[in-house]
Structure formats: structure tokens, C-alpha cells
């Protein structure tokens, strides 16, 4: 399969740079799979996993808390707000954060708290989703 240049950066550091065959990310209007020669596209990203298929079938998973995805026919850039290698994610911590957020939403003190809790919840759920995807991939092998 034809490959394209793929760069993933967060504000603090460069996460990934290299050639890839396919990139799968969670856009605001749904998940996207990008191959070489895709039409120019700009989209916001939801918190969630970004999967990069390297040449030779290797797959890497990163977790982003949001950001932007730019697609040019032969270059794809991910401008992540914060990105972590999915291996570094801790399922227990993510679950704990989810419970915390749910609890905070239970006692709606103010609108501000509520919006923040909802954002935290979305993030925790996205983290869990990333971990689960990673796990499925592991069990398939």
C-alpha cells in the first residue's frame, strides 16, 4: 500500500514522525480512516485514540485529548492538545477518573462544575476506549 508522511505533535513535544499507510482518528463528526491521496481535510479531534498503521503492518496507538487533524494528499499532521503513547495509559486511573466525573455530575452544584465534569467524563471514557482497543489488538495476536 502507498504510504504518506505522518507527523503527530503536541504543544510540548513531537510524538511521532514517519511514514504510515493508514491513520485512524476520532474526528468530531465521526471516526476517520486516512489513506494516501485523501482530499485536503481539516477537522477537530475528539478525545480518543489515534492509530497509525506503519509500513509492514505494525500498528501504533496514541491517545489525544483533542486537537486538529490536517490532511494533504501526501502529508498528514496531527496537532494534539496532549498526546500520550497508549501503552502508558493506566486503565485503573482512567476508570477512577470516570467514577469521579460521574459523581461530580450527580450533585450538580453549578453549570460550570457540570460542564467541567462532562468534559472530564468524556475524556475518561475516551481513555478507556483507547485501552480497550489496545487490548483487543493484543488478544487478536
Amino acid at each position, binding site marked *: 500500500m502507498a504510504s504518506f508522511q505522518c*507527523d503527530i505533535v503536541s504543544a*510540548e513535544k513531537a510524538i511521532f514522525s514517519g511514514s504510515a499507510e493508514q491513520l485512524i482518528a476520532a474526528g468530531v463528526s465521526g471516526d476517520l480512516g486516512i489513506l494516501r491521496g485523501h482530499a485536503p*481535510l481539516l477537522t477537530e479531534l475528539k478525545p480518543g485514540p489515534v492509530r497509525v498503521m506503519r509500513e509492514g503492518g505494525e500498528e501504533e496507538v496514541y491517545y489525544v485529548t483533542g486537537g486538529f487533524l490536517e490532511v*494533504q494528499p501526501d502529508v498528514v499532521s496531527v*496537532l494534539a492538545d496532549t498526546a500520550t503513547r497508549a501503552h502508558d495509559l493506566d486503565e485503573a486511573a482512567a476508570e477512577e477518573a470516570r467514577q469521579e466525573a460521574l459523581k461530580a455530575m450527580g450533585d450538580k452544584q453549578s453549570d460550570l462544575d457540570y460542564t467541567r465534569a462532562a468534559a472530564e467524563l468524556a475524556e475518561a471514557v475516551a481513555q478507556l476506549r483507547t485501552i480497550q482497543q489496545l487490548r483487543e489488538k493484543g488478544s487478536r495476536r
Partner: protein
Amino acid sequence: MAAAKEIRTQIGSIKNTQKITSAMEMVAASKMRKAQERMTASQPYARLIRRVVSHIAKANPEYRHEYMIEREVKRVGYIVVSSDRGLAGGLNINVFKAVTREAKYWHEQGVEVDYAAIGSKANVFFRNHGGNLVAGKSGLGEAPAVDDLIGSVSVMLKAFDEGQLDRLYVVHNEFVNTMTQKPIVRQLLPLEAEAEADDEEETRASGSWDYLYEPDAKTLLDHLLVRYVESQVYQAVVENAACEQAARMIAMKNATDNAGNLIDDLELVYNKARQAAITQEISEIVGGAAAV
């Protein structure tokens, strides 16, 4: 021997100062390394988002964002980045000089200037010398975070949105190398279609294509361009922090060297005074003995 004793104490105090400056030099050297690492680590993001934005400027969008349209200039904004602490040579002064030059240019054209000060030195400068300060932020520490800057940046962006500012610049020190830092003024808004000569992909015919936008062009550009400005300011702050440490290292190295020269000179004077006192004593004794 009174004069000699005074010189002794002076030498002692200069030696103490020298110890302090040489310690500061070493601290600055180690901090500079970290600050430099931070600067290089955040460069890819700043560079990529600049590339994306320059693509947008070259595309032919169905929707032109306000940040992309040149307006008649009636009022301009400057985000001035400085350090929190002094003892860094001419670092901050050079930035303020550049700002003053710019302000003079605008005043001659009858354009008013607003400032946002980042770093306590800039805050103090505008408090002492006037200038319409609309936002200030200090105490960023050695590892500034993007979150710390959002407040000041959003004040300026809001002013731009409301049409109170027609242009926005950022002024900071550019890290050329350890020995050289020079102040640089960069235009943030409206976006300039940058001529990046090094990109071979730039040969793509401009103006005839457009992105697909998700969710839609307006929402996306609103968010992206705000992020762009924030990242450019963050990059400026991080770069300035590296400059600060480098400048301090050089300043303290010079201070240590100068203290060494002073000590050498004073030691010479001290030895002369001591010699003179001994000679005088001998001649007094000899004179006394002759009188007996």
C-alpha cells in the same frame, strides 16, 4: 596601615561577590540547557501549525475568517515577552527598545498602541514609562505552561474580534546562539501568507483548492486560529526563557571576570601600601637610632 586594612576588606567583599556571580553563572548554564531542550521540544508543534495556517492562507476558502483579512490600521496590539528576573544583561532592555521604536513609528502615523506584558520586567517597564497596558502576566517560572498564557492572549484576541485592534504583534528575544540573542517583532494577526522557500510542496497551485472542513469552516477556523496564536506566543515565551538563561550566563561570566580584574588591581595597590608602610617604619627606626 589603616589604608591597607581598608583595601583588604574591599578585596574580601569583592571576592564574596565574585563567588556569588560565579555560582549564578553555573546555575544559569545548567538551567539554560533545560530551557533549550524545552524550546526545541515545542518547536515541531509551532512549525506544523504554522504550516497548516499558511496552507489555509494559500487555499481558497469558502469562508474567510476575520483573522485573515487586512483592515485599515487604527490601533495595534503588542504582546511583549520579558523575563521575570533581572541580572541578565541587556536582554529585556533590548526588547523594550524594539517596542519603543515600533510605538514611535505608529504614533507618527497617528495609530494608537496597546500592550500585553508577559513577565514582571515588562509589567514594571510599562508601569514606569506609561503605555496602555491591557493585560499582564508574570511569575511564569522556568517551565511556562500554555495554560498560563491563555488569559493574556485571549484579552488581545477579544480586542481584535471586537475591532479594537487591527493588528497584533509579539515581541521577544530570538535565540540565535548562546552568545547572541536579538529582539524580534513578529506579526501574528492578520495572518501573513508566509513565503516558505524551503518547502517543495509549496509548488502546488495556490488558490484553486480548498479543504474539507469538519464540523464546518467557521467553527474549525475559530478554534484553530486561536490555538495558532496561543502556540506562537507560547513558543515566544519558551524561546525567551532560553535567551534569559543564556544572557544571564554571559552577564555573570563577565561579572566574575571583572571581579577578578578588580581584585588583581586592588591587590597591587595593597601590596604597594604595605611596602610603603614597612619602608616608612624602617626609616623611622633608622632615624630614631641615629638620633640616639
